[in-house]
């Protein structure tokens, strides 16, 4: 077997990478392995090309849906107004061009995110303090609404009334913020 890097010397080192159960074989000769050593084992980023994998994920999509040929053509025409990245370009690169791409390609993105993140497609973590002011409040209202439903279900009506009042006051505040902000 020849080294996959230089294609000249016989491969002496054989790696198997297993990522999410996905096996990738890497066969290198001593010389190329020396060059790559360290990086393969110690880098935070794996040496293998993630882009191909991602592009693969994205490309699978049309064949699953396949109601007509048009969606694919639309995707090809779709481009980001801010950085002018096109969908085929994104497929090739595996990286977005700017923050606006997430909005531009949102229709294509959701199934991909679900596959990449075990079915999740919405953020559930940290919210920046300064720019995220209202988001904090809105998330809090959502949580309160959930516990309100639980209280009603378990017939804790007094507690439910308290929560309802709290929701109202926050919603009032949010409405005030929106007006003030305009």
């Amino acid at each position, binding site marked *: 077997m020849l080294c996959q890097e230089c294609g000249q010397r016989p491969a002496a080192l054989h790696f198997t990478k297993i990522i999410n159960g996905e096996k990738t074989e890497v066969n290198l000769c001593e010389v190329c392995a020396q060059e790559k050593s360290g990086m393969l084992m110690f880098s935070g980023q794996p040496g293998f090309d993630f882009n191909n994998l991602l592009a693969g994920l994205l490309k699978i999509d049309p064949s699953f849906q396949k109601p007509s040929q048009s969606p694919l053509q639309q995707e090809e025409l779709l481009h980001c107004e801010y950085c002018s990245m096109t969908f085929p370009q994104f497929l090739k690169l595996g990286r977005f061009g*700017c*923050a606006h791409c997430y*909005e531009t390609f949102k229709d294509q993105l959701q199934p991909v*995110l679900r596959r990449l993140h*075990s079915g999740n497609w*919405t953020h559930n973590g*940290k919210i920046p303090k300064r720019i995220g002011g209202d988001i904090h409040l809105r998330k809090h209202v959502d949580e309160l609404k959930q516990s309100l439903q639980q209280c009603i279900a378990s017939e804790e009506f007094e507690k439910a009334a308290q929560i309802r009042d709290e929701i109202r006051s926050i919603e009032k505040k949010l409405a005030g913020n929106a007006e003030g902000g305009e």
Partner: protein
Amino acid sequence: MSLEHFLNQAVSSWMSEEGPDSDIVLSTRIRLARNIEQYKFPSLFSHEEAKMVVAKMEHLLKTSGFETFGPMELLKINEMQPLQKRVLMEKHLISPQLAEESPNGAVVLTENEEVSIMINEEDHIRIQCLFPGLQLANALEAANEIDDWLEDHIQYAFDEKYGYLTSCPTNVGTGIRASVMMHLPGLILTQQMNRIVPAINQLGFVVRGIYGEGSEALGNIFQISNQITLGKSEEDICRDLMGVVSQLISQERSAREALQRTSNIQLEDRVFRSLGVLTNSRIIESKEAARCLSDVRLGIDMGYIHQMSKSILNELMILTQPGFLQQYAGGQLRPHERDIRRAALIRERLKMESKNIKGEE
């Protein structure tokens, strides 16, 4: 504080200090990926934009420096020698991508090297905190503090639905990568790692550093990190990783006990043979060095070797990497010359310890 200082101060705190469970966990790292709203991502941005990002960070450091983790210094990639970049890479302070593919890259380092902020790598900002031993909560707290400081001055690309927006959709949401570096010789010697890795993968975590036949890592060192960044909170991600790591720690400990019970003399023999190789060899390749260092470290942890510092594995695994060897030699070395240098460096380092070594008879 100059670049020389960073490089000469070869041993970072995460290599030399001991942390919780540091008989098995070598280090803990938290990385947060962030981008600045107004600029295009590094995959597409212009040189001008890239320079503006660096200038913004430089300005920020000057005007509203953040001293919680000590003074910080910004180093530009294009002002470094190839060897200097390589050394920073081997110390995990910068990534290969920043060193090789980011001409407008920079890194902000604290003096103790616990914090490094990579600029213009795959994302505009990557905050990284590296702690010795198992300290996920502390590392997360530190990373969050730096994140909050930056957010006070920088408009992050953030979306209510998708969270922190990153170049690559694999990092979107929290932008967090929590990883724990573990020394697991017991699980390798008892051939359990093959079974364990797929189980960890199924939980959404990645195991890196797998070597040959999908089971052996260089120096039996594995990095376990989260794969999912979206839909879970940072705390949940760390807690889940903690769960996996605790399991691994207890399995590793019982594997070591089992080894000691069933093949005590063989194990002791292996440890001292490896010590012999390290103390006496004149030419040693990195793979052999890694294997022997792992054995010696196991010997220290299990009480076969006394009064030798535990940090020897962490330290020498890094110091015997090609970049460091060449730094130590003061110039470029061919692979064969490196093997000679490596052997010399290891002998020298062990000599410092040898006064104290008393092997069990």
